[in-house]
C-alpha cells in the first residue's frame, strides 16, 4: 500500500511542477515546451514501474518498463530482423509503390474533369472502408512473405493519397488560374508552375497520413499469415506464449519506427512547403 501512496505523491508532485511550468513566465520557451510533456511521460513510466512492482502485478498482465527495456536489450537481433521484414520490406516498399501510383493516377485524373468528379467521391468512400480486411485476400494472392504485406500497404495508402492529391490539384483560386490565362500559358506550364506547387501541402498531408497507415497495414497483415519473422508475427506469437514483455518490446520498436517515419516526412514537408502558413508558425 505504501507504494500506491508513494506513486500518488510522485504523480501529484510532477503534475504540480508541470502546472507551475505551464503557467509560469517561461511557458512560451522551447525548453519548457519540451520539458512539460517529457516530464509527463517520464512520470507515467515511473508510476507504472512502481505500481507494477509494488502491487506485484503478474507479468502476464502488465510487465514493468524496466523489464521491457531488459527484454529489448536481450533480443536486439530478433527485433532488428522483425523490423527489416515488416518495416523495410513490407511497409516502406508498399508506401513508395502505393503513393507513387496514387500521385500518378491523380495527375491522369486531373486532366479529365469528368474523371475527377467521379473518382473523388468513390475514392473518399473507399478510403473510409476497413481496407485491412483485404489482408487475407492479398495473402492468398501474394503468399505469406513481404509481398502480400506490401500489397496491403499499397491498397491502404492508395486512396487517402489519391484523394489528397486530387484535392490539392484543385486548390488554386480563380484569380491564380486567370493570371495563367492572361499569360496564354499551355496546360503543362500551368500544371508545373502553379498547380503542382500549390498542391504540395495537401500531398504532404496525404504522405504523412500514409506513413501511419503503412506501418499499421504491414503489422496487422501479418496477423493473417507470415513467415516466422516480422513485427506482427512476433506480437501474435508472443501473445500466444503470454510473453508480454516481448510484445511490449515490439510495440516500442513499432512506436519508434512510426514516429521516425512520420517525422522524416514532416521534415521534408517543411523544406518543400516552407512557404505555407502552417509551416511559418503563423
Amino acid at each position, binding site marked *: 500500500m505504501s507504494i500506491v501512496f508513494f506513486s500518488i505523491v510522485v504523480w501529484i508532485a510532477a503534475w504540480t511542477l508541470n502546472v507551475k511550468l505551464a503557467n509560469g513566465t517561461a511557458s512560451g520557451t522551447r525548453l519548457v515546451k519540451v520539458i512539460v510533456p517529457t516530464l509527463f511521460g517520464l512520470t507515467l513510466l515511473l508510476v507504472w514501474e512502481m505500481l507494477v512492482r509494488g502491487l506485484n502485478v503478474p507479468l502476464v498482465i502488465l510487465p514493468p518498463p524496466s523489464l521491457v527495456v531488459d527484454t529489448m536489450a536481450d533480443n536486439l537481433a530478433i527485433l532488428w530482423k522483425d523490423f527489416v521484414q515488416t518495416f523495410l520490406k513490407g511497409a516502406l516498399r508498399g508506401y513508395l509503390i502505393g503513393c507513387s501510383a496514387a500521385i500518378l493516377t491523380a495527375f491522369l485524373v486531373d486532366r479529365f474533369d469528368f474523371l475527377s468528379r467521379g473518382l473523388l467521391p468513390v475514392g473518399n468512400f473507399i478510403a473510409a472502408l476497413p481496407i485491412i480486411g483485404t489482408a487475407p485476400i492479398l495473402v492468398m494472392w501474394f503468399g505469406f512473405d513481404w509481398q502480400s504485406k506490401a500489397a496491403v500497404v499499397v491498397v491502404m495508402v492508395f486512396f487517402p493519397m489519391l484523394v489528397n492529391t486530387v484535392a490539392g490539384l484543385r486548390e488554386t*483560386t480563380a*484569380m*491564380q488560374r*486567370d*493570371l*495563367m*490565362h*492572361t*499569360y*496564354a*500559358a499551355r496546360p503543362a*506550364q500551368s500544371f508545373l*508552375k*502553379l498547380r503542382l*506547387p*500549390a498542391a*504540395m501541402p495537401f500531398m504532404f498531408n496525404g504522405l504523412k497520413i500514409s506513413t501511419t497507415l503503412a506501418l499499421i497495414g504491414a503489422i496487422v497483415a501479418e496477423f493473417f499469415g507470415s513467415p516466422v519473422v516480422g513485427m506482427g508475427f512476433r506480437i501474435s506469437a508472443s501473445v500466444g506464449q503470454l510473453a508480454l514483455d516481448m510484445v511490449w518490446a515490439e510495440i516500442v520498436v513499432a512506436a519508434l519506427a512510426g514516429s521516425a517515419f512520420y517525422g522524416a516526412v514532416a521534415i521534408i514537408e517543411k523544406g518543400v*512547403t*516552407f*512557404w*505555407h*502558413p502552417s509551416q*511559418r508558425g503563423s
Partner: protein
Amino acid sequence: MAQEIVISAKDLSLTFATGDGAVHALKNVSLDVKKGEFVSFIGPSGCGKTTFLRVMADLEQPTGGNITVNGVSPSAARQARAYGYVFQAAGLYPWRSIGGNIRLPLEIMGFSKAEQAERVKNVLELVELSDFEKKFPWQLSGGMQQRASIARALAFDADILLMDEPFGALDEIVRDHLNEQLLKLWKRTHKTIGFVTHSIPEAVYLSTKIVVMSPRPGRITDVIESSLPEERPLNIRDSEEFIAIAQRVREGLRAGHDAE
C-alpha cells in the same frame, strides 16, 4: 503621340442567366481607347467595369457586340501576350521569391535566362523594390506586394496594362504613394492603361479619360476627357479644375443611380 485606337468596343453586351433571371452585366457598351491613354472605369458594384476589363483581357466572353484589341480579337491579343493584368489581390506565388514571381511570365513566354535576369532587375527598379528580389511575398507589406504584382505585369513589355482595383485593399497613405508611382511609371513607359476603381479622387488624379458606368444594366453614362496637365503633384487634388472634374464624375454616378 500616336492617335491610333488600341481598344475598340462597339455595342458590347454580356448577359448571363441566373436562377433569378437574366443579368445584363454589360449592355450596348461602346468605347474607343487610344494608344497611351490612361483610362479609368468608375461606378458602383455591378456596373460592369470589372466585367468590361475582363472582356478586354479575354477572361470573359461577350454575348453580343464587337470588341478588338490591337486590331484583333481579345483572344488573339492574349495569345500574342499583348497585355499585363493586375488583380485586386497581388496573387504572388508564396513558393517563389519576388524575383521568381516576376520571372513567372518570362519563363512561360520563353525568354532566355539572361533576358529574364535583366528584365527582373529593370522592372524592380521601376517599382522601387530592387532590394527585395530574394525575399518572399509574405515578408512584404500589402503595398509592396501590389508593387511586385505591377512589376510582374510590366516585365514582358506588353503595351497594354489592365488593372482591376489594384489599390483597393490598401490604406490611404500607401495608396497616395502608389498613385504617384503609377503616374511616374506611366509617363516613363507610355503604356495604355485601363484602370478600374471605386475611388473618385483616384480616378480623376490618374486618368486622361474617365469612364463613368452604372448598373442594371451595365452601361456607360459619361466619358470625361480630363483637362488636367500632365504634371500632377499630389496637391493638384485641391485645385479647382480637379474638383470640377470630380463633381462631373459624381453627377454621372448619381444620374446612373437615379435612373434605376
